[in-house]
C-alpha cells in the first residue's frame, strides 16, 4: 500500500500512483518546478538587460559581499536544521521536531533581518527601483530589488509555513508528511538563493 492510498483510505482500490509520491509531496515538487521558471524568468530578464547595458554598476564592496556570505551561511544552516526537523518528525519525536523547526524559522528570520538591514543601507545611499546614486544604469536597482524582493517574499512565507506546520505537528493535527513537504519548499528557497547570490551579488562586486 502506498502512502497516498493509505492517506486517502482507499487501499487496494486504486492504481499505484505514477511516481510513488503522495499527492501533497508531488504537488510541492510541481510547485517548485513552476516557481523555478518564475525565478528563471526574472533572472533571465536581469541577464538580458545587464548584457545589453553599457553602464552597468558594480557597487558591492567587501562589506556587502561579506554580508551576503553570512546570509548564505545562515540559509544553508537553516536547511540543515530543517533536515533535523524532518528526521525527528519521521521518528515521531514531536518536541524535538518543534525545536529543530523553530531554529530553522529563527535562522530564516535572521536571514530576512540581515537582508532588510542591507536594503535600508542601500536605500539610505540613494538606491531605488528607479534610481542609481553612482550614476550607472537605473535598471540595477530595479533588478536588484525585484529579484531579492521576490526571494525575500519566499523566505518570509517559508518562515510562516514552518511555524504553522511546527505548531500543527506538535498538536497532532498535521503529519510528518507536512513537515517533509515544508522542508522541501525550504530547501528550494535555499537553492534559489544559491543562484541569486552569485548572479546578483558576486557578479556585481566592485572591481
Amino acid at each position, binding site marked *: 500500500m502506498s502512502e497516498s492510498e493509505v492517506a486517502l483510505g482507499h487501499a487496494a482500490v486504486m492504481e499505484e500512483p505514477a511516481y510513488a509520491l503522495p499527492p501533497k509531496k508531488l504537488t510541492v515538487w510541481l510547485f517548485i518546478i513552476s516557481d523555478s521558471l518564475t525565478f528563471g524568468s526574472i533572472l533571465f530578464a536581469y541577464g538580458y538587460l545587464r548584457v545589453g547595458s553599457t553602464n552597468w554598476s558594480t557597487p558591492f564592496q567587501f562589506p556587502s559581499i561579506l554580508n551576503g556570505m553570512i546570509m548564505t551561511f545562515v540559509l544553508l544552516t537553516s536547511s540543515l536544521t530543517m533536515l533535523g526537523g524532518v528526521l525527528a518528525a519521521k521518528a515521531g519525536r514531536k518536541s524535538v521536531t518543534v525545536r529543530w523547526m523553530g531554529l530553522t524559522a529563527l535562522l530564516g528570520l535572521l536571514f530576512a533581518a540581515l537582508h532588510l538591514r542591507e536594503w535600508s543601507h542601500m536605500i539610505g545611499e540613494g538606491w531605488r527601483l528607479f534610481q542609481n546614486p553612482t550614476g550607472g*544604469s537605473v535598471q540595477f536597482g530595479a533588478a536588484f530589488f525585484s529579484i531579492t524582493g521576490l526571494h525575500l517574499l519566499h523566505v518570509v512565507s517559508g518562515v510562516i509555513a514552518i511555524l504553522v506546520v511546527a505548531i500543527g505537528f506538535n498538536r497532532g493535527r498535521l503529519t510528518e508528511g507536512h513537515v517533509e513537504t515544508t522542508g522541501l519548499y525550504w530547501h528550494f528557497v535555499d537553492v534559489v538563493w544559491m543562484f541569486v547570490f552569485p548572479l546578483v551579488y558576486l557578479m556585481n562586486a566592485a572591481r
Partner: protein
Amino acid sequence: MHEASAQPVVHRHAPPQGFIRKYVFSLDHKVIGLQYYGLALAAVFIGMVLSWLMRIHLGWPALPFPGLNKLSPNGAPGGLMTPEYYLSLMTMHGTIMVFFVLTNAPQAGFGNYFLPIQIGAEDMAFPRFNMMSFWVTFLAFVVLIAAFFVTDGPPISGWTAYAPLSAVGRDAGPGQALGQTLWGISIALFCIGQLLGSLNFISTTLDLRTRGMSLARMPYSTWAWFVTSVIGLLAFAVLLPACILLILDRVAGTSFFIPAGLVVSDKLQPHAGGSPLLWQHLFWFFGHPEVYIAILPSIGIVSHILPSFLRKNILGGARTVVGSLIAFGFLSYMVWGHHMFLSGMNPFSAILFSVPTLIITIPATIVVLLWLGSIYGAKIRFDSPALFCLGFISLFISGGISGFFLAQPSIDIQLHATYFVVAHFHLVMAVAAIFGIFAGTYFWAPKMFGRMMNETLAKWHFWLTFIGVYCIFMPMHYIGLAGNVRRYALFNDDYMIPMNPVHKFMTIAALATGAVQLIFLYNLFHTRFWGKKAPDNPWESTTLEWSTPSSPPPFDNFGGKYPVVYRSPYEFVEGGAADYVIQTSPVEVGTH
C-alpha cells in the same frame, strides 16, 4: 473480481448542505467545472459583442453608431469610434477570448468535470485548491471588466500588451493609465488560478486513478487535459513575473521594458536601460505554449468523442495519439520566436525558430491524418457531437495550412501583422476550439444534465455556424495577402479601397453567425430545465463517465463504489449484443 464493490469507501469530504456550499463555494469538481463553463459563456458573449462593434466599424467606418456616444463620450464622440477606441475593443476582445474562454472552457470547464470521473476518482486531489482556483479566475475576470469602467477606458495595446506602449503609462494614449494596470493585475491573478488548477490536474491524474486504470488506459481527453496542465504549469509561471515586471514599470518607475531616450506624445520618458524585446521574449515564451493550451484539450475531446460515432478507435491507437499530444507539448516551448520574425532579430536566429515550427506541423498532421483515416470506411453516426468533431477537423486543417506559410520568415515578412495571420489563428485556434467546446457540450449534456439536447436545433446550429465561420474568416486570407494590415482602425490608403466590400461581407457574416448562437443558447437552457430525460449511456460509449449510476453523477461520482477497469477505452467489437465494451466490463469478448 469485483473486490472494489465490497470495499468500504472513505469520502474525503461530506456532501455539502445549503445553497452557498452546494452551488457557490462548492468543493465538488462537477460544480466547479460548470462554474468555469458558465464564466466562459459570459465571457464569450462579451467577447463576441466586442467583435461585432469592431466589425461594424471596419465595414462602415463613416457610419455613426447610434448610442455609442452615450456609452463612451470620449471614445466615440458623435457615435464615430476614435482609433484608440477601436484598439481598446480589439485588446479586450483578444484578452477575454484567449484567457477567459479558450483557456477556460475546454480545460478548466470540461476537464474539471470529467477528468476525475474518467479516471474513476471521486473528486480532484485538492478540492479546496480547485474552489480557490475558480474564484481567483472569477476575480481576475471582474478586475479585467473593471477596466471598461475606469475614466480612461480599457488598454489599447492588444492582448499581447507589447512594450513600450503598455509600459509607459498615460502618455501612450487613453486606457494606458489605470486600464492597462488593471489588465496586468487581472492577468497575474489569472496565472495564479491556472497554476493552482494545473497542480490539481497533474496530481489527480498521476495519483488518483482507480484500480485497472493504468496511464495507457486513460481516454484521449484525460491525456489531453494532463499534457495541457503540464504545459500550463510551465507557461503561466513565466507570464506571472512578466506581468509583475510590467506593473513595476508602470507604477514603480522601473525600466525593464523601456529604453532610454524614448519620446512618446512629445514627452521624454523618464526611463532608461530596458528593452521592449525583453517583453516580447517573456510574453511569447508563455504565449506560444498558451495557444497549444487553448487547442490541445479540444484535440483530446474530439479524439475522445469520434470513436463513439465511428464505432471504432482512432487509427494508430493510444500510443500515436498520446505521443502526438506529448510532442506538441514539448515542441511548443521551442518556437516562440516565430512571433518575432519581424522584431529586428538576427535572421539566422529566425531559422532556429522556423525549423521547430515546421517540425511541430508533424504531430499536427499526424493527428489530422489519424482522424481522416479513422473516418474513412467508418459507419458514421451523424449526431451533433460527431458533426462538430468533423467541423473541428475541417477548421483545424483550414487554419493549420496557413501556419505552414507563416512559419517561414521569408514569407512572414509579407504576411506578418496582416489579416492573413488573423485568419490563421481564428480558424486554427479560436473557432476550432469553440467547435470542440460545442462538441463536448452536445456529447456530455446527457451526462451533466441528465437530458438530451434537441438534435434538430443542434443540426441547424452546426450547419449555420459552420458556413458562417468560413464566410467570416476565409476572405481574411485574401485581403491579408493583398496587404490589409491588422490592428488598424481605418484603412485610408488607395490600395485598401477595393477591400472594403470584403470587410462589409465579413461583418454581415459575423453578425449573422453571432445571431445563430442564440439557437445554441436556447437549446442549452431549455435542455437544462425541460429537456427529454437521457438514458445513462445514450451514445453507447465505452469510457468511465458513462458508467456512473446516474446522470448527473451522484455527489461522489460512482455512488459509494469504486469502479474497476479491465480494458482499454474505445473497444468496439463485431457481433454480440452490443458493438462496444465499456471499460469496466470484465466479460471476455472477441475484440478486433
